[in-house]
Structures are given as structure tokens and as C-alpha cells.
């Protein structure tokens, strides 16, 4: 991303007969019991293992951790359309164990099994806002003292089901996507997983942990407007952003960067633009916004977690990633569309914003640790 590279390839390389452009993770590490796990599970397990690789606290804390994993695809990647011709026959022909990975709860359970975690474990499935909501719910678990720390994130694999679904909705851009561009044509599906380790600031400070960022505020709202389309005026998302800032104790001037949902679809990007215009109205200088889906596509349930990780990376490195291929931005007021060259600036506070089918919105406010 620092080099401005994206990772798209033609969908036909993976799924012959499918048009469009996708971003795929390469080969995954092999697992001794790999046959029991879906691709979504395996990506989640790999990301979670990396997330705790440096954990040097008591083993009991890791064992008692909570897990909140987001996914919309779950084990759909393991099931093919032949199941519809007769489930019993498909199960007899080897589908039984593949179908066992279907429930999204398996994603969280797989991480728990892989790392020997025994705390509260759940999966969140709120379409494309899932990943951000997993982090918000994990934070609530910490406030409730339900676990000493929580692994929160998301994972979703590419699969024909979702590619076909978005294709049927005519939501796919056949070329690499152009979020927030006036000539945007849709989204590219990606896949991936990201897991964050959350613990209370007091506990992390006490044990001398390396604190990557402080989650200062979070909020979740719903548009209650349409089953798939966002509210056109963006007010549901704007309300979500305002609530998160309120919880964070931040004003609109404090935010240095917004990692946007920015799918590249005509409807989402215009609604989201209105949301930023409304939420940051009155700010003395334009709010810097970019969509990093232009690098790796829309990873659905994993998107919010991946983008939270990128927001934290931006804060740590001072690198504000521009939206790729954004040449003719949506007309707006008060928004500084990040495009072209990578910009570097100190970033004490940044936001990650997500939205999804069903009208769901989520916003996370991160701050740098003073520790």
C-alpha cells in the first residue's frame, strides 16, 4: 500500500466463467486438521495467530480471552450449487463435513480451537459493517469485564455465491474500482482477515504492553430506510459518526483522517459523501477521507476489521493512504479527498467508518496512546 500497489486480478483466473475483478489471498498455511475448516475459518485462524504472536502476558489471560469474529460468507465457500439437487445425496458424496463449516459461528469457534481460547466467543454477521461492529462489541465485552482481553476481527473468503450475488445486483465494476470518483461503476470483491487484540488501557499499561492505538469511541446505528440501499442523505451514518466522536470525547476538528467505507458503488459513495458533509459540517478545514478498498477490494465481513487495522497503521506511520484511481472526485464541500501521492502527517486521532446491506452503520475512533 505504501508503494501504491493494489492486488486485483481478473475473476476468471479463480472462477472460470465469472466476469469482473477480484482480490484474492494466496495459498494459506496448511493446518493439520484443514479439512474441518472453511477458507474463511483458515484465514481467521492465521490472522488470529499472528495477532497474538507477540503476546507475552500470562497464558491464562489468553486462554480466558473473548473472541468476536465477523463474517458474512462463513462456510458458503465450501458448498456448491449441487446441494440444491438433493442435500442428502450431496452429503453422502463428501459434503457432510464441508457443510459443517457453514454456520458463521464456526469462524469464531475455529479461532478458539486453534488458540485454545475458552472465553466468550461469538460471530457477528451484519453484512459489510460486521468487522467494525465486532470491534465495537468486543469493546463492550471489556467494559463488562467479561474477559481480560478480546480478539476482535473479521474474515471472509471469495466464493461464487457472493460473486454471483453482487453480479446479479449489477454492483461489480469489471475493472479495478474507483471509490468516490464521479465515474465509479461498482465494487470489486476481495477476501481477507484481520484480527485485533483489545484490552483495557489500564490493563495494557500495567503489563507494559506495546499499545498500538486506543479505541476511544465507537457507535452503531441503522438507517431503517431500505433493505439494501443506504439512506440517500447519509444521516444514519452521520449520526453514527457523531455518536462515536461523542463517546471518544473528540470534536470534529480533532479527527485527522477518515478511512471510509467507500465501496465504489454509485449509491454508497454519494450517501457516504453526504454523511461526511453533515457530520463534519462547520469544521475549519476539509476532513481528509480515503477508501482503501481501492487496494484490496471489498472484503465484506472482514472489511471493517481490515480497515481498522489500516487506520491504526496510518496513525503509527503518519501515512495517509490515498484512494487509488480517484481522478474526478464526487462534488462535495468540506471533504479533502486523498488521492495521488501518499501524504504524511502526524495523526493523533483517526476514524474508520463502515456500512452494510440492511442499513447498518458503524464508526470507530482511534487515538494514539500517550503511554
Amino acid at each position, binding site marked *: 500500500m505504501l508503494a501504491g500497489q493494489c492486488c486485483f486480478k481478473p475473476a476468471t483466473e479463480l*472462477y472460470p*466463467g465469472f466476469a469482473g475483478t477480484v482480490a484474492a489471498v494466496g495459498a494459506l498455511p496448511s493446518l493439520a486438521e484443514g479439512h474441518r475448516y472453511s477458507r474463511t475459518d483458515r484465514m481467521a485462524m492465521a490472522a488470529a495467530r499472528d495477532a497474538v504472536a507477540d503476546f507475552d502476558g500470562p497464558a491464562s489471560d489468553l486462554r*480466558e480471552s473473548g473472541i468476536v469474529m465477523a463474517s458474512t460468507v462463513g462456510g458458503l465457500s465450501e*458448498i456448491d*450449487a*449441487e446441494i*440444491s*439437487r438433493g*442435500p*442428502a445425496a450431496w*452429503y*453422502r458424496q463428501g459434503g*457432510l463435513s464441508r*457443510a*459443517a463449516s*457453514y*454456520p*458463521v*459461528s*464456526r469462524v469464531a*469457534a475455529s479461532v*478458539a480451537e486453534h488458540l485454545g*481460547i*475458552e*472465553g*466468550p*466467543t*461469538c*460471530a*457477528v*454477521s*451484519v*453484512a459489510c459493517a460486521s468487522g467494525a461492529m465486532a470491534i465495537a*462489541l468486543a469493546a*463492550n*465485552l471489556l*467494559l*463488562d469485564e*467479561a474477559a481480560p482481553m478480546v480478539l476482535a476481527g473479521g474474515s471472509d473468503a471469495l466464493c461464487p*455465491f457472493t460473486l*454471483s*450475488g453482487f*453480479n*446479479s*445486483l449489477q454492483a461489480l465494476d469489471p475493472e479495478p474500482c474507483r471509490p468516490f470518483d464521479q465515474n465509479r461503476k461498482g465494487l470489486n470483491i476481495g477476501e481477507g482477515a484481520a484480527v485485533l487484540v483489545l484490552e483495557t488501557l489500564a490493563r495494557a499499561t500495567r503489563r507494559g504492553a506495546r499499545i498500538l492505538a486506543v479505541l476511544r469511541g465507537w457507535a*452503531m*446505528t*441503522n*438507517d*431503517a*430506510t431500505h*433493505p*439494501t440501499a443506504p439512506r440517500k442523505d447519509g444521516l*444514519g451514518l452521520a*449520526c453514527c459518526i457523531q455518536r462515536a466522536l461523542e463517546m471518544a470525547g473528540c470534536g470534529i476538528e480533532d479527527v485527522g483522517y477518515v478511512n471510509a467505507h467507500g465501496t465504489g458503488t454509485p449509491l454508497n459513495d454519494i450517501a457516504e459523501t453526504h454523511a461526511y458533509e453533515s457530520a463534519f459540517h462547520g469544521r475549519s478545514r476539509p476532513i481528509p477521507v480515503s477508501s482503501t478498498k481501492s487496494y484490496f477490494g471489498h472484503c465484506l465481513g472482514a472489511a471493517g476489521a481490515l480497515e481498522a487495522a489500516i487506520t491504526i497503521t496510518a496513525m503509527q506511520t503518519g501515512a495517509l493512504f490515498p484512494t487509488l484511481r480517484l481522478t474526478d472526485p464526487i462534488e462535495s464541500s468540506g471533504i479533502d479527498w486523498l488521492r495521488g501521492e501518499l501524504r504524511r502527517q502526524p495523526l493523533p486521532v483517526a476514524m474508520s467508518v463502515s456500512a*452494510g*446491506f*440492511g*442499513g*447498518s452503520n458503524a464508526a470507530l475512533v482511534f487515538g494514539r496512546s500517550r503511554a
Partner: protein
Amino acid sequence: MKTTLPVLTGIGSVTPYGLLAGLISAEPLEPSVITAWSTPGLRRAFLVETFRPASIVPGLKTRRLDRLSAWALVASSLALRDAGIDLSHMDRSRIAVFFATGFGCVELTAAFYQSAATNGWAGTDPITFPETLSNAPASHVALFHDLRGPNVTLSSKSFAAESALLQGASLLRLGQADLAIVLAGDTLTQAVYEWYEAAHLLAPACFSNGPTFSADGFIPSEGVVAMVLEPAGRQTARSYAALGAGRWAAGGDVQAGVRQLLGDVRPDFILCAGNGAPCASSPVSSSACTIAGETEVIPAQAVATGMGEAGALLHLLLALSKRPGQGPALLLGTSAHGGFAALRLELF
């Protein structure tokens, strides 16, 4: 009835017991014969009878929805009706929806696969696709009732309903919402039933007329239960119970975990949830008895156990409907896969 805890003020249910606001009869049920798809012989399950949602909730349009979404709409409407809540006086952006499900919208997921098998992946139905998403039921509840607060769909191996209940109550305690509608449910489809059968998880009573409790498997069930939670002091109507501290865990020592949760409190009742484990041999009963001592144990019922990880709200509804009495209680779920869920309650 004075409490500082979130309280349960409304219940709506679409279950094999029927479509009801408030408590239900809780009489033992006999499974129904499956006729919705062709079976190789007698196959039985606890099924929701077909009904027209608009006859229960006027104006409801559900023709293109998964049954799970339609049932969630009906159950949430019945629960709000039971709670006697006038939403027009509330800040809709502070009303949350938590929906727990094991499998999500499997009926339309199957239909989408069917369209792919028939027309190829390039010929699938754009109307069906969004309705296959697991969060479609909760989204429709928000859309129909104009609820603009947090809207979360979750799943947790064996404990989805309990975790939704705990997280809904947590949102109220943390001041992130003024009211929460917690729903849990699943539908039974051919693909789900035949998976259970292929995995040898079904009780003998699924294949013949016989006793419904069995150590050798469970009888699948379906339905949606909705519960309205309000912060203490806000509710004006009667309450069923107050929700205290709770825990759910994927593993560990059940008894130690529950004892830690209870502290010095001795529950008068333990309401058992079975979570898909074989009914008679459920580890719930033995754990509950060991923890309970002289405490009265309200056993799990097969119809709720068969609903799997979304069944705990039906367990709770059935236990409340038995009207065991007033006082401290514990909703306890354990799973054959390990782990537990426990929630302290104060029954009114």
C-alpha cells in the same frame, strides 16, 4: 419490584406452540410429520404451522422474504405489543435490535443455490441475494418499526441466544441504548434436517411415533422468540424478570464458572437450556443439579433444545410460562461441545 437491572417487559413468539404475545401454555408438544419436502419415510420435527403474517401484523409484506425474516417481524411486533410500548414517544436511534441465529436465512440461501444450479452463477436472482444475508431478519425488524439504533446479528456455537441476551442487556447497562429487542431463531429446511440425519444426530422419535425425550439424539425445531428489554425504572408496565450478570464461555470448568458468577447468591430456580444436545443425557441437568443442591431445577424441553444455539430464548419463555415462582434464578445452558452460558435472573 425494585431493581436497578435491565428488565424483560415483552415477549413475542412464533414457535410450534403458535403465534403468541406473552407467556405460552408450555404443555408438552408432539412433533409434526414433515410434508414440506419429499422424505424417504416418516420424518418428524417440531414445526411452525403455516400462517399469513399480515393477519397478525396488519400491513406486513413478506412475500419475498425468508421465513426467518417474516417470523422475526411477527415476533418483534408481538413482543412490542406485549410490552405496551408506544415507540412514537421514543428516540428511535436509541433502540437496539440483537438477533441470534444458528443458520440464518437458509431457506432463501437454498433458493439462491437452486437458481445457480438451474441458470448458472450468471443467472441468479438479484431480489433473493440480499435476503440470504444473516442480518436480513434484524434489518427488516429495524425497517418495519423504524428502529435506528444498533442492529446486530450474531451467532455463537451453542450459545447464540444467550450471548444476544447478554449483549442486549449490556448495551442498556452501558447507556448505549434505551431499549433493546432481542430475538433468536432458526428455520428448519430440507438441507438442515438432512444434515442432522446424515450426521446421525436425530432422536428415534424423528422416524417413528415414540417418546420425544431420548438419549440418542434430538428432534429438530424451528421458530423465533423476541424479548423486549428496558432499563430499570423506565418501564411502566409489568415485568417478567430482571437480568443480572451473565457469562458465556467456549470452554473451561462449567461449575467453577457458574459458582464465580453466582458469588454468594443462591438461586431458587435453575432454568435449563439444552442447546441441541441429546435431551435426556444433556450435561445441563447434571451440571445444574450439582450446582443447585436443594434448588429447584426446571428441566429443558425438547422443543426448545431442538432449536439449537438459538433455542435459549424459547427455553427461557417456557420456563417463565411454567411460573415457577418469584426470586433469584439462573438460566443455564451447556453444550455437548463444551462451554456454558449462564445468566442471573430475578423472577417477578
